[in-house]
């Protein structure tokens, strides 16, 4: 075999190999993506339902007080 044939065979094997790896890696990435993330038992930010709620922002609720009246002098 001449050099070109050897190199060509190497490229052929590499191309087939990388195509197989490409498809395999894609399947692996999709499988990993589908896996549900495990919840940290000690995550203090999780609510009772296991959902994340913002911990630094408290919703402002205006007080329901009657409008102050101004006494006439």
């Amino acid at each position: 075999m001449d050099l070109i044939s050897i190199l060509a065979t190497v490229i052929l094997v590499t191309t087939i190999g990388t195509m197989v790896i490409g498809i395999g890696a894609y399947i692996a990435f999709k499988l990993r993506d589908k896996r549900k993330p495990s919840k940290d038992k000690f995550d203090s930010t999780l609510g009772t339902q296991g959902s994340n709620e913002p911990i630094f922002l408290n919703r402002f609720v205006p007080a329901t007080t009657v409008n102050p009246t101004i006494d006439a002098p």
Partner: protein
Amino acid sequence: MAVKRLARYGAALFAIVSVFALVAFVYSQVGNTKGSFGVLLENYVLAIISGYLLIFLGMLIFRYAAMILLSFMEHLESMFKRKRATPQVEYRQEIGLPMVTLVVPAYNEGPVIQPAVRSLLELDYPNFEIVVVDDGSTDDTYEKAMVIARESRDIRVRVITKRNGGKADALNTGMSVARGEFVLNMDGDTKLSRNTLRACILHFENPRIGAVAGNVKVLNRENIWTNIQALEYVEGLAMARKAQSFMRVVNIIPGPLGMFRKSVLQQVGGYESDTFAEDCDLTLKILMHGWHIAYEPTAIAWVETPSGLLDLLKQRYRWTRGILQAARKHSHALWRPRSMGVNFYILWYMLFEGILWPFSTVLGNIFFVYVGVQYGLVTLLFYWWVQLTVLDVVAAAYCVVIEEEEPWLVLYAVALRLFYINIIDIAKVIATIEEWRGTAMTWGKLEREGKL
């Protein structure tokens, strides 16, 4: 939705039927020729594919030559500081420098947020503020950012925390509270070069420039994946983006570094969350409004790239689908060359790079592997590979010289063509098919290793 899906499948069916009709027509024309239908079909299909691949190779050679020429023109232009428009505002005097707001969106960037913000405090510019938008992180991003905010005396650092709404929402929040006339948007894990603000602001002397795209370089060059990505970034920016900048039609302002006129961001309605490539979508909106976009190669954002194959595929999958979503969103420009002007070409070029190129590369590989195995013509695959590799090496050498990068990066051009592109292109092809089918997807976030 169902009608749209039906229309897509109808179009695909029509294309398949058309191909078969064409083949049947050709067969009827050569019906007297000796040989079975199968052999004839194979010959015709192979002939059509080889013809297409030749045309594709010609397009690639033209693309590389045009890109190198245009980027070199841009390089010369920036070297000699030639200006096309008469500046109306002078941003070279220290006293006249306008205020710039740096918006840093951060979601679970705990390991990197402090060094990232600290490096921003070192920027060489007299008039800027930093707004860190904590996008509902579940780690200690907010507390760590607040430590920096309390420490900083000369430069104002504000930290805003909000319910998680995605990067686009965080950037819009930052924009809405920005006090600067100009807004620099970046990623939470990005480190900027000291001259970034001074270099970018000069472009705004031209009143037609609405935004400036920065240069992005790979910080974590630690293994073969990240080294190849380093070369990929250098090629993409030094060649493609510089060439686009010469034409004033940069088609993606990168997420890690983009500076905007605040008025332009407000005019186009800021970022939108309906695509997975909000930076590409915003860029297209700016272009559609008639603004020009410049590229500043000396303003550098150092970023952490995926160091493993699966994370890399995840990133490219999202980019591909995001760019396709953005292109589809602005698809009206695809069919109006007269009214859309240069945006017409930008969108078609995006489709060429996003769809045609990866499909053609994968098709070429399958074709030459088949011909090699079936007919023993393995050398054809070798010559196909050599032609593409020569293009890559020439482009890499040019870009490494222009960007004054490490010379050994050129060697990775061979590895890039040998296996990297094959793997990435397969992911891009599948991503395109899934986008076409409307498969659901999630954002996905690269886990930071804190390499800043």
